[in-house]
């Protein structure tokens, strides 16, 4: 017999009651350490600090002093944003009571419950939240490794890589070729590579209209495929050549010195090559030994890992079920996690998990599309309940409103994450 949803919630409520005797440590307040200051980690740190009103000691470990959002970094490539528009500091979190430590987390001792820092020393925790985002799988694209990221940028962690790709795009010769090696599933931001193609096409249409774009893709189909292909035909006719699995798009190697891409045996000279390799959880998840394969399996009710009840993994690095790897998803998961962690440490009420996601993509000026869904926690995974997607052939007014909505969302989520 399996527990049904109602019984499961009842059980977790009872568990919360058992734990509701606050875990008062000899040295004082319970401690939460959060690793990674992106959409998952920053949100979790902020919500735990805000809602516990000083009852929990919250430390965020994040190596960079300025965080560039991956979401909207394609709009920077397209010329719709300046790089500073997508850069954020951690001042708001610090003002909200989070100890922000700019350092690398380089190890987790699960027995001693400490996190080691690259700068020396370690931080003790009662609950550890890892939100490290993604790293790339070694050897995923033949001929490419991290040492080639200057010649062939991934630009899939925003910041200097985004600036590099933009600079290369701007200095492409007239009528040149922009190539993308798209990633296999699962990866961060399912529509991301295709929004990027749209933004690159927009830039080239304005500045280099005879240039070409080739996409080598190991997948037979991709998110919002009908919407993107309709948009490419409408706005960038003849510019984008998408080579899917069926035509050998997965059989790819690159040569960063010669600036060539070989697709299914055919060698193509390219001027810019954006290699987005296969992905895996950020390294600290491996170091904490909470991964199974490339990702860290978690329990849907609270995002705790299957491997360790005191370690939680949020966002892209987690393997949770149906939610796409996105900033919106990470932000949503962080709130469920924060509620559960606070309940475990201080006895506050734990409410049922509710998750949601919406991904907006910009295809051309004022031509925005979106896809979204709601999710619930089942015993097995986070399961999709209901969803929607923009329709092909929508009116220009609807598309414009969708784009404006995405602008509003950007302001909303960055404030929600960082204060």
């Amino acid at each position, binding site marked *: 017999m399996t527990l049904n949803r109602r019984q499961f919630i009842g059980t977790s409520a009872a568990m919360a009651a058992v734990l509701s005797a606050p875990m008062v440590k000899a040295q004082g307040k319970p401690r939460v350490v959060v690793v990674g200051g992106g959409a998952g980690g920053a949100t979790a740190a902020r919500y735990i600090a805000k809602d516990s009103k000083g009852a929990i000691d919250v430390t965020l470990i994040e190596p960079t002093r300025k965080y560039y959002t991956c979401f909207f970094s394609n709009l920077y490539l397209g010329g719709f944003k300046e790089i500073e528009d997508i850069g954020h500091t951690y001042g708001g979190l610090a003002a909200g009571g989070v100890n922000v430590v700019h350092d690398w987390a380089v190890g987790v001792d699960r027995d001693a419950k400490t996190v080691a820092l690259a700068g020396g020393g370690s931080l003790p925790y009662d609950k550890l939240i890892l939100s490290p985002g993604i790293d790339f799988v070694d050897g995923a694209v033949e001929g490419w490794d991290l040492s080639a990221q200057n010649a062939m940028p991934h630009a899939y962690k925003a910041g200097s890589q985004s600036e590099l790709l933009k600079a290369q795009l701007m200095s492409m010769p007239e009528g040149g070729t922009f190539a993308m090696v798209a990633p296999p599933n699962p990866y961060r931001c399912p529509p991301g590579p295709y929004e990027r193609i749209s933004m690159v096409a927009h830039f080239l249409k304005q500045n280099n209209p005879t240039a070409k774009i080739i996409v080598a893709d190991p997948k037979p189909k991709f998110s919002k495929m009908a919407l993107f292909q309709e948009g490419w035909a409408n706005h960038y006719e003849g510019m984008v050549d998408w080579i899917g699995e069926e035509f050998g798009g997965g059989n790819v190697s690159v040569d960063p010195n010669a600036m060539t891409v070989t697709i299914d045996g055919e060698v193509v000279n390219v001027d810019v090559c954006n290699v987005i390799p296969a992905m895996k959880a950020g390294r600290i998840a491996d170091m904490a030994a909470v991964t199974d394969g490339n990702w860290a399996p978690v329990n849907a009710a609270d995002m705790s890992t299957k491997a360790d009840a005191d370690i939680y993994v949020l966002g892209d690095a987690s393997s949770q079920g*149906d939610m796409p*790897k996105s900033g919106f998803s990470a932000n949503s998961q962080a709130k469920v996690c924060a509620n559960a962690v606070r309940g475990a440490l201080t006895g506050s*009420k734990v409410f049922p998990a*509710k998750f949601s996601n919406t991904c907006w993509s910009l295809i051309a000026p004022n031509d925005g599309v979106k896809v979204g*869904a709601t999710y619930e926690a089942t015993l097995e995974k986070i399961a999709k*309940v*209901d969803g*929607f997607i923009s329709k092909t052939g929508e009116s220009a007014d609807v598309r414009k409103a969708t784009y404006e*909505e995405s602008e509003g969302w950007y302001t909303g989520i960055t404030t929600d994450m960082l204060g």
Partner: protein
Amino acid sequence: MSFRRVIFFVVAGLFFSTAGAAEEFGDPVAGKTVYNKCKSCHQVGQGARHRIGPHLNGIFGRKAASHEDFQYSKALQRAGRGGLEWHIDTLNAFMENPRALASGTRMSFKGLKKAEDRSNLLAYLRTFSDDPANIPEADPTATPTDHDIDPAILALEGDPEYGEYLSSECTTCHQADGGDDGIPSIVLWPEEDFVLAMHAYKNKKRAHPVMQMMAGRLNAEEIAALASYFAALEQ
């Protein structure tokens, strides 16, 4: 209730009502064994092709009789034209008794009478369709619920603390400081207006796909909790 289901009720409501209630995904490993009953006619998996029956890759979310390179029965073609799509509910009904759903189908299979077999087979076939994690517009893998909550939590009706937790879903998009570029402000709304608006989205009387989805899974108590939280903010 989504549009496709509304269509389906029109097309096949009579038959649907006789189908077993087992519209849940079971165990895909056990489902592979159940699939042995299907595999003499249907292929599934990498390289699967049409045989006596069409291949079953990507079946979830597919319109009935929509492989152009397969010769379907007139009955199934008619069902496809009428809007029949393959989702967990329709597949479950078809597996239980193919002829009840499409009386002229050439699929000469009596059906799987045990709900457990059907749910396991559904889970197995699901693994050969789009995964919502990679293609977010893929078919749901859970059946919508009204998110009933247990009595202890229901006792929190109108509880601003619960409302505060729920409101964290709103502030991903709606700015907490009342900014309204692109997305409307929701601060300083009268409590009653808020409740009316949320129920209007829930009942799809107000048109916005994100809000219909978000409000759609909140029950009356949860909307009341949100309202009480936002009302308390105003003071």
